[in-house]
């Protein structure tokens, strides 16, 4: 009876993913980073999704009559050089930040995890070739690599997603490879192989569920890095292009009229910092929950 029971709870990806929220919430009472981070992230996501309902003005609508007007009245955060409502633009800027962050992380994980799994599970020459290619990407400072990709593809927010995604590939590849290497030599995996299980099946059944937790942490942490990178690229004029509002682009516009309209330089920066802080704290909180080896003393 016990035997059949054990056989029924095969560790599929689905059961592991279902187990993650449970493990996160188990000791929620003491997990301040997760509460604060989750709340911050929740607020940012909600404001971005509800932007069309909350914004009283079209973020791209020009009104030269009220250009550079100080905060107050109908425009709680003032207007910019072209008379656009800063509040509406900050709200809509969140959509760009979240979209670029999410797509970049998906590109990084989507390309990096298969590369790492293939390298780690097969070993040998394939491993050597793939990981040398990853080292080649890591030989550049992250932002420089992203700028180089944009220099090749041209500026734009789709190109920025791709550029940041490429930067993230090696980190995901290394994570997946390390995990694949460990699991490959486990006895139950050897047994599965001996029973004639296909390599892809073994990866799907045994390797992927084991990396689900670390992968989730990695995705949260790289998400905040991707948002920061998008802001930097847009600040440099290489990411999101006007008139689409982005936090980095708004700060670039603010830099030009810094002493005439200082209000323009405040809220986009607050928004970036809050979004990044929220994601970082969420990542820390999840890590505290998923990795019992990390005690409070070693954070």
């Amino acid at each position, binding site marked *: 009876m016990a035997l059949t029971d054990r056989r029924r709870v095969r560790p599929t990806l689905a059961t592991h993913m279902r187990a993650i929220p449970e493990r996160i919430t188990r000791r929620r009472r003491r997990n301040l980073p997760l509460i604060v981070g989750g709340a911050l992230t929740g607020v940012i996501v909600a404001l971005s999704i509800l932007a069309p309902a909350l914004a009283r003005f079209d973020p791209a609508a020009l009104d030269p009559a009220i250009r550079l007007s100080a905060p107050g009245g109908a425009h709680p955060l003032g207007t910019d050089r072209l008379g656009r409502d800063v509040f509406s633009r900050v709200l809509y800027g969140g959509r760009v930040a979240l979209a670029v962050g999410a797509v970049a992380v998906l590109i990084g994980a989507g390309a990096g995890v298969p590369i790492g799994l293939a390298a780690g599970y097969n070993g040998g020459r394939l491993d050597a070739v793939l990981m*040398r290619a990853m*080292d*080649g*990407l890591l*030989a*550049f*400072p*992250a*932002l*420089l690599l992203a*700028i*180089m*990709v*944009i*220099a*090749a*593809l041209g*500026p734009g927010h789709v190109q920025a997603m791709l550029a940041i995604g490429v930067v993230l590939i090696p980190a995901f590849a290394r994570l997946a490879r390390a995990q694949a290497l460990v699991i490959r030599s486990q006895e139950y995996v050897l047994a599965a192989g001996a029973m004639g299980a296909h390599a892809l099946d073994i990866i799907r059944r045994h390797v992927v569920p084991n990396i689900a937790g670390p992968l989730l942490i990695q995705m949260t942490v790289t998400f*905040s890095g991707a948002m*920061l990178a998008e*802001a*930097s690229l847009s*600040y*440099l*004029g*290489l990411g999101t292009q006007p008139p689409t509002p982005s936090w*980095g682009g708004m*700060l670039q516009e*603010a*830099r030009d009229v*810094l*002493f005439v309209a*200082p209000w323009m*330089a405040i809220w*986009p*920066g607050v928004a*970036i*910092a*809050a979004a*990044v*802080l929220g994601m*970082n*704290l969420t990542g820390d909180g999840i890590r505290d929950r998923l990795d019992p080896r990390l005690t*409070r*003393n*070693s*954070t």
Partner: protein
Amino acid sequence: MPFVLRRLLTVAPTVLVVATVTFIALQIIPGDIAQIMLGTDARPEDVIRLRREFGLDRPMVVRYLEWITNLARGDLGTSISYREPVAGLIRQRLPVTISVAFAAMTVAVVVALPLGITAARRAWSALDLTVLAGSQVGLAVPTFWMGILLLLGLAAARPIFPLQGYVALTSSPLEWLRHLALPAIALGIERAAALSRLVRASVLDELNRDYVRTARGKGLGGGTIVRRHVLRNAFIPVLTVAGLQMGFLLGGTIVLEQVFGLPGLGRLMLQGIYARDLVVVQGAVITIAITFALLNLLVDLLYAAVDPRITYQ
């Protein structure tokens, strides 16, 4: 020293890899470079002329080998927008970038070491929690926004710090410092946030070791234990991670040069991108990447100096 020599030899393959990736990204991916440089409305005969002038009509392999051999001789080609050798342009701007990075690193170390060590020694005290929370915020604030806030707060009201520009160290050390102060603080604070967390975690780890208890048992004071025994051990993981994070320092420098109008490599690269001058972009990219490799080398050498157990396999 065999370790130093062997580590120096590993720089060459790194540079080769970096040069290859740069070549692939900027010469193969973009498609017809002559067309890109001249824009879509260029006359076909101009495109053909430029292609011939830069040897773009020759096979890829030939161009690749030429790029590598020229690089080895320090020849980075001729800029199309400046009509000057790129190597000369870079030579003028490299000191600016290195000054910013160096000054920021100094700020980061000066801020992070005392904070991290004190926080670790009083773990979970109010001071420690403040450092932890402050470093989380410091990591979240983008460096270019910090730069803008510093300009707004410090350069606007009082003319102690200039709004932009750069003065060479050789022409006036005081002016050099004055122009570097704000960018160095903006970037240094962000790096200090990362570094102080590392120092704190590492010192805390060492404080729980047996040798610390032994030292305490023989009557040594807390300060002496930290200075004589803990720090030397704690610095090894700190250096490892700090070395890995050198890229953030250089990336931050690129953005801050733009905020503070500093004529460094980052600005040269961006002007190259805006002007579609890929020869300049290529030269700036490879120089920054080589600087990155050399910084990592420096960290590794420091590593060996701190830990006598390390030998390079």
